[in-house]
């Protein structure tokens, strides 16, 4: 007997998607992560834009990771023009990434994922019984946003980030305020770990998950690193970031405007869990303790653990941000202007870790600084195949369950990946313009 399990509109995710699982008796026939997001074609529309306008345009791919898109885009452009930014700019960009990660993880853990675990349709409904927990999440989210506002000039689509550096720099008074906020945030982050630890276990499928993350920087950071490491549990391989193409092997799927990535024909997962798998030894002490407390297992076998991994990163990022801000308070902020950017013909690539995982921007410019080709690969695009794989495994694990139970599981798996569907659509294929 054939049966179809269908989630029409996947709620509490960014963008428009659905889930379809076709079954024949107890065997899964086909699994689809449907994506209905309209095609904005930013990829081709970008063509001919002057380099200064590229980052602000491409950041509109997605709001939740707009800071990552912006900085990654700037880095790719700077790489193409051979521009070297100052260490201070790198630190500030790092701080911005932390702010975004804190905001994004707090949003996801508390407002989007937690209601699943506690049996509410939304954080709004959850607030009726758990107002302090929702409030905790909102405070952490606000902390992340206040970093983005200060460094990026806006919480979403940062305007202060320009090629070569920043329009304006934070003042000592602003940094001192931020430092205070971060110190308070540390307590909140600990509470967040307690909260996540208290959530009921979610275990819908077991898999030897293949993970991929950026490595190569001394610290547990997000935008500095030159190697992509792929971890298959037992085997590890390293790919130079510029050769990111060997990592992905895209297919356009008929049911979605997104494209799927595979490594050696196997789906892989990117994001917080992947980062921890690869770099957990670089965590700062509080975060390391949180990792311990949450009992994350490695090699990773449960994709739902991504939620826990996000909680660990929350702690780590606040700790790390405190250090950066403290350094600025001690040494002062140098009154730097953005370094001069002189366009030239060429290609540049940047690979970073957005909140949801690996993000690649690669551009080609002509001598006048007009963009001629662009290639953007987003984390959710990379995750799509893995999401479908885990849908299938979850259903196969308990095929006899009723539709509603299965649907709930599928939704929770999808949300554990914190998918950003707007992002997945804007997988940009390299186009060489003749």
């Amino acid at each position: 007997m054939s049966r179809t399990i269908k989630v029409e509109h996947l709620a509490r995710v960014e963008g428009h998607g659905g889930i379809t699982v076709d079954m024949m008796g107890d065997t899964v026939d086909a699994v689809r992560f449907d994506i209905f997001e309209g095609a904005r074609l930013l990829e081709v529309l970008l063509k001919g834009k002057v380099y200064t306008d590229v980052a602000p345009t491409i950041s509109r791919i997605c709001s939740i990771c707009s800071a990552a898109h912006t900085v990654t885009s700037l880095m790719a452009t700077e790489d193409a023009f051979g521009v070297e930014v100052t260490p201070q700019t790198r630190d500030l960009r790092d701080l911005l990434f932390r702010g975004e990660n804190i905001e994004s993880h707090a949003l996801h853990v508390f407002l989007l994922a937690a209601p699943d675990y506690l049996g509410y349709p939304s954080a709004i409904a959850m607030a009726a019984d758990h107002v302090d927990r929702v409030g905790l999440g909102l405070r952490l989210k606000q902390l992340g946003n206040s970093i983005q506002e200060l460094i990026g000039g806006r919480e979403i689509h940062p305007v202060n980030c320009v090629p070569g550096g920043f329009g304006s720099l934070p003042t000592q008074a602003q940094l001192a305020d931020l430092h205070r906020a971060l110190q308070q945030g540390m307590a909140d982050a600990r509470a967040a770990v307690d909260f996540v630890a208290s959530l009921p276990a979610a275990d819908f499928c077991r898999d030897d998950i293949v993970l991929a993350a950026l490595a190569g920087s001394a610290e547990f950071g997000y935008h500095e690193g030159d190697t992509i490491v792929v971890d298959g549990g037992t085997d590890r391989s390293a790919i130079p970031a510029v050769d990111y193409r060997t990592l992905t092997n895209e297919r356009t799927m008929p049911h979605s405007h997104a494209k799927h990535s595979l490594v050696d024909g196997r789906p892989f997962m990117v994001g917080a869990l992947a980062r921890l798998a690869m770099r957990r030894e670089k965590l700062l002490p509080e975060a390391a303790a949180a990792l311990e407390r949450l009992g994350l297992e490695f090699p990773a076998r449960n994709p739902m653990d991504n939620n826990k991994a996000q909680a660990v990163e929350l702690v780590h990022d606040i700790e790390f941000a405190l250090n950066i801000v403290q350094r600025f308070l001690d040494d002062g902020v140098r009154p730097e202007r953005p370094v001069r950017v002189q366009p030239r013909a060429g290609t540049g690539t940047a690979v970073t870790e957005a909140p949801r995982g690996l993000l690649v921007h690669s551009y080609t410019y002509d001598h006048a600084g007009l963009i001629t080709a662009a290639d953007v690969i987003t984390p959710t695009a990379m995750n799509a195949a893995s999401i479908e794989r885990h849908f299938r495994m979850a259903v196969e694990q308990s095929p006899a369950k009723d539709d509603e139970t299965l649907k709930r599981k599928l939704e929770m798996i999808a949300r554990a990946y914190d998918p950003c569907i707007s992002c997945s659509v804007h997988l940009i294929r390299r186009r060489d313009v003749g």
Partner: protein
Amino acid sequence: MSKPTVGIFGLTGCAGDQLVVLNCEDRLLELVSLLDIRDFLTASSANDETCDLDIALVEGAVLSDRDEAALRRIRERSKVLVALGTCAVWGGVAALDRLAGDRDRLLAEVYGEGGHGFDARPARALHEVVDVDLNITGCPVEKHEVVGAIAALLNGNPPVTLEYPVCTECRNAENRCVLVDDRVMCLGALTAAGCRARCPSLGVACIGCRGPVHDANVASALDLYREMGFSTDEVESRMTLFAPLAVGQS
């Protein structure tokens, strides 16, 4: 007064304007307590998809038949339809496709031949498809404008809209003029105010993310930009970023 029923929707966009609502962290619980939010897919999995709505906040542009059908349904069930954000008000970055020509070719360029079957249409602003009662522009919208608009609507009044450009706010902030003093191509004079001159206050040129101000003197600005020596490429690139049609038409 009973709470107004509200729906918050996203068509095709970056979800930034919905995120702005969620980013009103310190006021979010207050906000949701004043409204009877019935339909908000991005935040809730229990939605009433058919009930009448007093207020519908709609983000994003219309890029597919699916978007269009959704928007028409929203229009039918809502008293006040608010276009939220530059994509909804002006078409936003995606509307560049209206200037770029053959859509099938664009689709094929991105998705290969498989792209032809997609439900994909040229980007349209909401007002091109249905009647819109209120526009709140911005990419993304500004929190104070969203909260102010909801506060006004709760009292039955239309919110106050600013009918002057970013330059005005920029001067009031006593900024150094990016255009005149630094000779960087700033769109402040053509762009609708409301962001409190966010970018020029940071020393960065306004790139027009809020779309054009009513009565924008594009012809004079073009002359000026040319006189100042900006290249045609640069002028065209920047002026078509967020509201390409508005520029295309003037």
